């Protein structure tokens, strides 16, 4: 290993994000195995197929009937992504009587990078755009209609998920 060129490339399990050799200590070993079989067949062969059945059973914590093993309950949870309803709301909010800002909420539920989106909006509409909350982008100017088209076409979010929120009051 010492002679190889750095940086080494290390593959990480897509399920539990650990290097695959540590998957067995994670809580979702079974799912990891499936993922590994599909995506990293070499690793899979090295880690799983070369072992006997007994060894495998010993590895899988989930099979043990004891509720609690020494060393605590192993690793907990690994925050399962909560299934949030995907919806992007585009609305506008009044600013200084006759000027508007456009608010886009919910992009995060569609796994978008807010910062990048905000940059894209700013460039597209030639106006100020900023991330203003946990899941909110404010674009200066009333661009609600264009914004909805833009989100559908450029960001590849499904048409049905994008909703016109009308006037949003803060």
């Amino acid at each position, binding site marked *: *290993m*010492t002679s190889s060129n*750095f*940086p*080494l*490339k*290390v593959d990480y399990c897509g399920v*539990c*994000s*650990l*290097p695959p*050799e*540590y998957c067995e*200590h*994670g809580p979702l070993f079974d799912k990891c195995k499936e993922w590994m079989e599909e995506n990293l067949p070499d690793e899979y062969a090295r880690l799983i197929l070369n072992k006997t059945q007994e060894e495998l059973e010993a590895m899988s914590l989930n099979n043990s009937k004891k509720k609690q093993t020494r*060393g*605590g309950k*192993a*690793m907990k949870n*690994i*925050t399962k992504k909560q299934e949030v309803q995907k919806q992007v709301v585009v609305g506008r909010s009044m600013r200084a009587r006759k000027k508007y800002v456009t608010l886009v909420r919910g992009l995060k539920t569609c796994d978008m990078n807010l910062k990048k989106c905000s940059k894209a909006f700013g460039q597209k509409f030639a106006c100020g755009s900023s991330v203003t909350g946990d899941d909110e982008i404010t674009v200066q100017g009333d661009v609600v209609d264009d914004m909805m088209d833009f989100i559908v076409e450029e960001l590849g979010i499904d048409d049905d998920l994008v909703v016109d929120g009308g006037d949003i009051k803060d």
Partner: protein
Amino acid sequence: MFKKFEAKESIVGTNQIKNSVQRSIRTKLIDTYPNIEEYINDILPKKVNLKVVKCQDHIELISTDDEILFFKKRDGPFYPTLRLLHMYPNMLPKVQVDKGAIKFVLSGAHIMCPGLTSPGADLPEECLPTDTPVSVHAEGKINALAIGHMKMSSDDIKSINKGVGIDNVHYLNDGLWRIDL
């Protein structure tokens, strides 16, 4: 250190690092980890702006745009993150724990001496003084599973063989591993 660590709660603020500070960090890193001098430009490209992410408990993370590279607590040494360590495993001196310890280490336990002296484990020949950052490997595995700093010198670990030998600073799947900037 990162057992309870969540992006939303623990991060206080993010700042760009000034160029001059960036340079001093760079020299400091080379000082601490002479092995990475060759690769320092790959790790910290000169052109890229670094950010320092301040967190609770005086923890600071050094990151580029999308990746956290180093962290430190108060004025302590810089530690690499595990992802970085996996790419450059020679950065830190290695110690190895036995199989039985893996589970405990992965749930954040400090590393006890017996886990470092048993047959499956391995300590380097030369003496590691206290407070050295080390990478903790495991019996039969390739990649490091934790980063720690020596609570006792490795000679003491061998002779006393009791209690906490290495403080577990950062381990696989802790808050820092899972964090997403």
